């Protein structure tokens, strides 16, 4: 170690330290190459069947995104940050785009805001379904796993129609979006939402109201309102504990301020409430999709990009958008070449959105160059992980997957 670090604390890895175990306890390393862990390790000390100490050991898929972002042009960071959670790609990159937009002063026009909202909600459903599927397989319920992943395909298909890619949409760009919805999108989206509403009832029957699963989840991992606040938990997990906090509610962004929808808040704070919170959120997201699609159908296809980037666009760009030249897809919004060497005025910006797993936060600092000076990313999983350390002790070892799964935790997102 270099001398500039204070010498008193020797850095050491979790799991590699020498610690004295009491005679009765037993240390189990769950992960990283383990069917029930994902790319992480949980070091569990068990006394009999009871966990007494839980140490989440993370970083197995760390990619130094914050450092990489400092060496890349502003727009190139969008596909980079998408790799944190490709199943929630639009939500994950949106706060970065918003923060940079704050610095640039290019608020997106109305239609672009609605389009972003639409993809965000599609992503949210896909992300929740993914989480529920993993949750199902943690509890040995393979049917929910397959169902959730199968039904997620519906929403991935919707996203693909919108953006041209199944997962890595790179959809929002500074000042607007990259595509408009195709002509046949509203019909398909309405069919998909109607289908999903029925399916949610079946999910409840086979999984959430199944006595077997209920007994696994009820009163397991109870997180009180105060504990959730203290630990800074985010997302549906927070709202399952009775905290009325949702960025869409407290600081509405994009089109959320103009849409009417509910934010489900549960009181129990146990694993079952967290699972139900996701189901109810999917239901609300379906409503939002319906409303946004209605709005998009009623309004003309114009104003999808901020004036700064679209005013000087040549005729070809408009032709591509209106479908005169459509061999690479209709309604594409061409990017101006100035995006490639965009310089952002100096300043500091902070943006938050409600991503699928919770509040996604970016801090962006620019010193006027074509690369950011500092980008700080705090992903929802990163803020949820602390709950494992404080919530799990006292539960049985078999409750570990029930709690772990109920937090819908996704290692690549927190490792960044």
């Amino acid at each position, binding site marked *: 170690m270099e001398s500039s670090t204070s010498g008193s604390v020797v850095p050491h890895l979790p799991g590699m330290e020498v610690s004295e175990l009491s005679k009765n306890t037993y240390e189990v390393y769950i992960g990283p190459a383990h*069917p029930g862990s994902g790319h992480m390790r949980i070091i569990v000390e068990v006394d009999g069947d009871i966990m007494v100490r839980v140490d989440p050991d993370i970083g197995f898929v760390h990619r130094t995104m914050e450092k990489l972002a400092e060496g890349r042009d502003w727009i190139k960071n969008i596909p980079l940050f998408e790799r944190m959670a490709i199943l929630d790609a639009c939500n994950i990159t949106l706060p970065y785009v918003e923060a940079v937009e704050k610095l640039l002063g290019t608020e997106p026009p109305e239609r672009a805001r609605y389009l972003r909202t639409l993809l965000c909600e599609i992503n949210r459903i896909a992300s929740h379904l993914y989480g529920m599927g993993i949750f199902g*397989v943690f509890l040995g319920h*393979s*049917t929910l796993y397959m*169902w959730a992943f*199968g039904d997620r395909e519906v929403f991935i298909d919707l996203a693909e129609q919108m953006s041209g890619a199944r997962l890595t949409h790179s959809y929002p760009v500074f000042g607007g979006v990259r595509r408009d919805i195709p002509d046949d999108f509203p019909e398909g989206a309405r069919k998909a939402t109607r289908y999903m509403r029925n399916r949610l009832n079946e999910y409840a029957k086979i999984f959430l109201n199944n006595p*077997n699963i209920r007994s696994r989840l009820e009163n397991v991992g109870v997180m009180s309102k105060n504990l959730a606040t203290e630990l800074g938990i985010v997302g549906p997990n927070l709202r399952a504990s009775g905290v009325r906090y949702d960025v869409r509610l407290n600081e509405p962004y994009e089109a959320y301020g103009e849409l009417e929808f509910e934010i489900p808040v549960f009181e129990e704070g146990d694993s079952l409430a967290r699972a139900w919170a996701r189901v109810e959120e999917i239901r609300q997201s379906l409503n939002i999709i319906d409303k946004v699609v209605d709005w998009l159908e009623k309004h003309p296809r114009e104003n999808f990009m901020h004036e700064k980037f679209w005013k000087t666009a040549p005729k070809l760009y408009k032709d591509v958008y209106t479908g005169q030249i459509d061999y690479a897809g209709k309604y594409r919004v061409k990017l101006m070449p100035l995006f490639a060497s965009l310089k952002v005025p100096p300043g500091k910006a902070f943006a938050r959105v409600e991503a699928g797993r919770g509040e996604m936060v970016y801090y962006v600092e620019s010193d006027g160059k074509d690369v950011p000076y500092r980008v700080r990313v705090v992903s929802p999983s990163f803020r949820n992980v602390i709950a494992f350390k404080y919530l799990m002790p006292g539960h049985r*070892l*078999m409750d570990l997957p029930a709690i772990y799964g109920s937090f819908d935790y996704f290692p690549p997102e927190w490792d960044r």
Partner: protein
Amino acid sequence: MITWYLVYRIIVDDIIFYPPIYQFLIIPGLIAALLVALFIIWFERKAAAFVQMRYGPREIAPRIGGAIQLVADLTRYALQEIIIPETVDVLPYILSPIIMIILALLPLEAVPLTSIRTYFPIPPDYSLLIAVALSTLSPLFVVLMSWASNNKFAVVGGIRESFIITAYELIAVLGFLSAAAMTQSFNIVNIVNIQMSGKWLGLLNPIALLAVFIAVLMSTSGFPFEIPDSESELVAGPYTEYTGLLYGLNMGGGYIKRWVFSILIALVFLGGWAPYKPVPGIITGYFIPSLIVSIKALIVMAIMSFLRSVYGRYRVDQALGIAWEILIPLTLAAFGLGLAEAYFGII
């Protein structure tokens, strides 16, 4: 000519249809169990796939719906290298899967599969008691296996297995014995003969059938009681350190255990070879009744397999709670119901 006929008679009568060999190796023993495993594993995968928006096994023989998928899997297991970790206790590590399978098949030696006296493997007077007693042996080797593996996950799985053994055995024994209470006999032949009139004990005493059904699910770690080898926290439980053929044996051991219990359920609760009346003669007196019992057992197994696509797994303390707090009173009630039915002469 006569000598060839004699050889044929010896092979058929004294070797193939010699009851201990026939029942241990052919029907319902090893060969039938293998075929059953072939079918049941295929059915389990297919049924789960039907429920789960998939096709299930298909690529190997697509015309018959991938029915011989297990053959491919077994070939793979057989050809895989058996890795024996340095830290294991080698002798019990290798022997316990093999002994487990043999012991799992042992109860089949005790049950009569026909009412013809010449085809009893052992005198059937106490056959129910003996079969149930023999069925309790093989789980011990799962515990031994986990201990010999010297792996934390295996040990935790083995401890869970031993908890489960204590939970389900009493239920299984009491459940089967409630049939004895109803018929005042431990003789399976008697029990089946009483059911010949269509009064199956499973219909007369459904509580006992349900209790035994759940106990069998517990004993063979079928869903929703797939606790010892719960994948999401224990990798593969007691079988974590096993590879290749030994792992295949372990997987097969579970199915064989379930098969043997299903045969017992078919005999005791589902009327055995009823409604067929065995007639002297090898085919009519031995082969057909054993086939009928096997088919009934197969249906029981198929129902057990279907549960995989509906349920998750219980927590170990919940499973024990279900066993000790709900099922044991229920089996006692079933025992009482059986006694009452016997007393009032319903049977």
